[in-house]
C-alpha cells in the first residue's frame, strides 16, 4: 500500500479534474436518459443501434458528429461576442458542481456561502444567452434572448426565496451544513411547508433552465432554436445541448441537497445508514432528473406573457408568504 500525501493545492487540482470528468460524462448519460425517457413516453424505442446494447453510445456518437461539423459564424455577426457566448453559458454550469456535496467529504470546496455562490453563479449563464442572441444578428435569436432575460428576472426571485427559506431552516449557507441540518429531509419536515418550498424551487428552476413547459426562449416551433439559431458544431453543443443537460443535472443535485437530504438516507432509520452516501445522492439526483423530464414531456408550452403573469402575480407573492411562514416556524416551531 502506497500512501500518497497531497498538499491542499494538489488536492484541489485532483478534485477539479474529477469534476471535469464527472460533468461531461454525466451530461452524456443525462442526454441518453433524456432520449430514452422521451421515447418510451411516446411509444417509441429511441436510439437502438449506436454502440450495440440499446444504443448506449448514441450521445457519444452525436458528440463526435458535432465535433466534425463546420463551425459557421454568420457574416453580420459580432464575431468575438458570438464565439465567446457558449463559453459564458457553459463555464458557470461547470462551476455549479464545485460546491455540491456528493458525500460528507466528497466536495471540491465547502464554501461558507455555498448556497449564495450557487444562486449567483447559476444566473451568469443568462448573460451568455443574451450575448448569443444579440451577436447572432438574427431576429429570432434576438427575440429568444430577450425572452430568456425576462424569464430570468421573473424566476430568479422564487428560487432565491425558497433557497432563503432553506437557509433559515438550516441556519447556515454552507451546503454541507444544510445537509447535516436535515435529520428528516426538508421536503418532509416541516410538513407541508417543505413540500411547498420544494415545488416553488422546482418551478423556478425549470423556468430558469428554460425547460418545457417554460421553454419559450428556445421554442423550436416558433423561434427555431432561439438564441442558438445561428450556432453550429461544437459551439452549438456546448452552448445549448451540453449546457442544458449539465444544468439540469446540476439543478437536480441542488434540489437533492436542499430538499431531499443530499447524501443522507431519505428517513433517519439506522439500517439505512449502511448504504453509502454517494449512492443515496446518486439515486435522489436521478429521481429529480426523471421528475424534470417527466414534466418536460407532458405539457404544452406556455406563452411568455402568461409566464410573466404567473411569476409576478402568483409565485412571488406566494414565496413571500412562505418566507413569513418559515420565519414563524423557526421562531415558534418545535
Amino acid at each position, binding site marked *: 500500500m502506497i500512501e500518497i500525501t497531497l498538499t491542499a493545492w494538489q488536492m484541489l487540482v485532483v478534485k477539479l479534474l474529477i469534476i471535469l470528468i464527472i460533468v461531461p460524462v454525466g451530461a452524456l448519460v443525462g442526454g441518453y436518459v433524456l432520449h430514452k425517457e422521451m421515447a418510451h413516453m411516446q*411509444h417509441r424505442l429511441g436510439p437502438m443501434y449506436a454502440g450495440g446494447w440499446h444504443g448506449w453510445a448514441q450521445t457519444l456518437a452525436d458528440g463526435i458528429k458535432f465535433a466534425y461539423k463546420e463551425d459557421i459564424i454568420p457574416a453580420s455577426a459580432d464575431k468575438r461576442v458570438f464565439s465567446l457566448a457558449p463559453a459564458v453559458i457553459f463555464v458557470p454550469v461547470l462551476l455549479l458542481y464545485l460546491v455540491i456535496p456528493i458525500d460528507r467529504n466528497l466536495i471540491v470546496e465547502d464554501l461558507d456561502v455555498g448556497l449564495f455562490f450557487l444562486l449567483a453563479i447559476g444566473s451568469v449563464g443568462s448573460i451568455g444567452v443574451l450575448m448569443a442572441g444579440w451577436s447572432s444578428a438574427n431576429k429570432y435569436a434576438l427575440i429568444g434572448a430577450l425572452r430568456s432575460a425576462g424569464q430570468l428576472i421573473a424566476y430568479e426571485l422564487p428560487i432565491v426565496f425558497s433557497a432563503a427559506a432553506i437557509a433559515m431552516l438550516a441556519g447556515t449557507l454552507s451546503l454541507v451544513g444544510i445537509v447535516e441540518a436535515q435529520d428528516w429531509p426538508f421536503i418532509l419536515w416541516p410538513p407541508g411547508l417543505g413540500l411547498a418550498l420544494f415545488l416553488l424551487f422546482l418551478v423556478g428552476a425549470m423556468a430558469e433552465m428554460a425547460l418545457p413547459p417554460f421553454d419559450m426562449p428556445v*421554442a423550436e*416551433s416558433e423561434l427555431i432554436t432561439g438564441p442558438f439559431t445561428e450556432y453550429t458544431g461544437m459551439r452549438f453543443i456546448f452552448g445549448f445541448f451540453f449546457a442544458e443537460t449539465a444544468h439540469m443535472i446540476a439543478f437536480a443535485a441542488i434540489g437533492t441537497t436542499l430538499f431531499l437530504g443530499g447524501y443522507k438516507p431519505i428517513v433517519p432509520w439506522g439500517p439505512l445508514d449502511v448504504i453509502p452516501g454517494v449512492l443515496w445522492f446518486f439515486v435522489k439526483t436521478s429521481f429529480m432528473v426523471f421528475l424534470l423530464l417527466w414534466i418536460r414531456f407532458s405539457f*404544452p*408550452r406556455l406563452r411568455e*406573457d402568461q409566464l410573466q403573469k404567473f411569476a409576478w402575480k402568483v409565485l412571488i407573492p406566494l414565496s413571500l408568504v412562505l418566507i413569513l411562514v418559515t420565519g414563524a416556524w423557526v421562531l415558534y416551531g418545535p
Partner: protein
Amino acid sequence: MTIKDPELQNLQDSSAFATEVSEGRLVTEQMLLNVGPQHPATHGVFRLLATIDGERIVRAEPIVGYMHRGYEKLVEQRDYRQITNLISRMDWLSGINNELPLALALEELMEIEVPPRAQYLRVALAEMNRILNHLMFFQSFSAELGAITPTFYAFREREDIQYAMETVTGGRMHFGFFRPGGLKEDVPRGFTAMALAAVRKVIKRLPDYEDLLTGNEIFKQRTIDIGVLDKEVAYSYGVSGPIGRGSSIDMDVRRDEPYLVYDEFDFDVCRGTHGDCFDRFWVLLHEVIESAKIVEQALAGLPPGPIMGKVPRVVEAPKGEVYIRTENPLGELGLYLVSDGGKRPYRIKIRTPSFSNVSALPHVLENTLVADMIAILGSFFFVLGDVDR
C-alpha cells in the same frame, strides 16, 4: 443595413416603419420578421411577412407561390388516366379525396353508371383518408404548442389506418386508386375486418387525446379566445372545412349536396361557437369520430357486385363542361372541367380549400403575439401543395 428586395424596401419606407417618438415615452421601432419560407411552423415553403412591435404582430401578410407547380396547366397536356395521379399530389395528405372529384366529373360528362360496391368503397376510403389527414394536423398542432408527446400517439393510430389503405391501394400517400367508372381493383379479403378494427381503435383512443390536450390548463390558455375568426370574415373569404365550421359556419358538402352515397349514412356536422383556435381544434378532433362512424356504416353495408361501370377503353369526355363540389378534409374542393371532346381536358380549374382558408390569415393575425401566431398557423390547417397547386 441595406435591403435588396424591392418589396421589403417599400415596406421599409412606408409609415409602418416610422419610429414612434413622443415625449417621456419609450421609443420603440417596428421590425420586419420573415416567417418562412423555411420555418418549422409553416409545414413547407409558406412565407408570412410580419411586422412586429416587440412580440406583438402589427400586420401579417401571407405570401404564397413558393410551391407553385403549374398543375392546372400541366393537366392540359396529359390524358385523363394520367391526370388522376397529378391531382392526387395537390394535397398530399389526402390523395384519395383529390382523385374523387375528377372521377366524379368524368362520370358526369361521360354518363357512366358507377356500381354501388364501388360507391361504398369510395366513401369508406375517402373517410379513412380524412381520418389520416385530421390526425396529421392533430399531431402538428400539438407539436407547435410544444406538446411533443401527443404527436407520436397520433402517428401510432395513423399507422393502422395507413396499413389498411396500403393493402388496398399499394400506396401510402399517392394512392391513384379511383378510376372514372369505379375503382382500380376490388379490396383484398379481410380488408373489412382490418379497416373496422383500425377505425375502432382510433375511436377508443380519442378520449386519451382529450385528456392529454383539450383538458390541459396550459393548452386551454394557449388556444381559447386566441385567433378568433369571425363568421362574417370567414364567409367573405370563402373559408370552409374544419376552420369554417370552427367559426360556426353550418356547411358540409357531404350533407348539403350529397355526392356518392353520403345521403345514406348517418353523421353529424361538428361546429364550433367562437371561431378560436380551440374551436377549430375541437372540430378537427370530433370530425375524426364522425368519419369513423361513416366508415363503419359503409363497410358494414358493403354490397357485393362489380367495382367498375361500363367504361370505354379510351376515356374521352364528350364536349361540355361540369363543376363538381366535394368535401375535402380541409374544406370545399371545386373542380371545373371543360372538355372539347378529346382525350385531354381543355381546361381544369380547381378551387382548393387551403388557398381560401389561408387568405383569411391577415385578419386573424392582426394584434396577436408571436407565440399566438404559431398557434394560429397550426390551427389553420393547410397544406402548401393545396395552396399553390
